[in-house]
């Protein structure tokens, strides 16, 4: 096992545990802004996991996936925040 494989396993475990923490916060949140924040953090952790998988397989096809995740995650976070702020996404 090379050092990269070991580090990859560690990073998979770290970001996977991070996802579980976020999921716990999505279910147990005192308010809606906390849920939005937890969902946004979940998107960021998933981007990290996709890129890690791309490093593991040595394929470059996963960066497009990560880019799409980043874009849809940003747009949906802003739309959700805007919705609870104004009651409408596009006024």
């Amino acid at each position: 096992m090379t050092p990269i494989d070991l580090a990859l396993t560690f990073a998979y475990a770290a970001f996977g545990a991070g996802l579980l923490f976020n999921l716990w916060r999505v279910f147990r949140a005192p308010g809606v802004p906390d849920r939005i924040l937890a969902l946004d953090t979940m998107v960021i952790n998933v981007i990290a996991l996709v890129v890690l998988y791309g490093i593991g397989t040595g394929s470059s096809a996963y960066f497009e996936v990560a880019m799409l995740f980043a874009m849809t995650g940003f747009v949906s976070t802003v739309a959700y925040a805007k919705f609870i702020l104004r009651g409408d996404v596009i006024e």
Partner: protein
Amino acid sequence: MNPIWEYLIAGLLVMSGIFGIVGSFGLIKLPDTMTRLHAPTKATTLGVGGVLIASMAHAWAAEGVLSWHELMITLFLFITAPITANFIAKAQIHRAKVEDQLPPTGTGRSWATFEPDDARNPGHPAERSRAE
């Protein structure tokens, strides 16, 4: 692959894993929403940045190609993270009714997000035509 590159990439991956788990742990550990906003938006972005730099270094060391996709994702995340944090903070300020707890602005005017539209931009054409 050169062992120096291997240890560099492994170090970057471990560092970003620690940042990622600290950011997500802060989300459940910190006491209220405004402080919770701090943990993921900073630490997780650093974590993902580390993963992406490790990915660039891996593509350069393994295949000799300089891959720019990761830099695009890093740039995109660095631009959008403050915007989402601002939106969530604004939503929290308006929903939790914390207007009396906010520090003074020091200008005699209230915080911009609590001002009515015409007080915020008096010279705006839409506001003028409405007044006439």
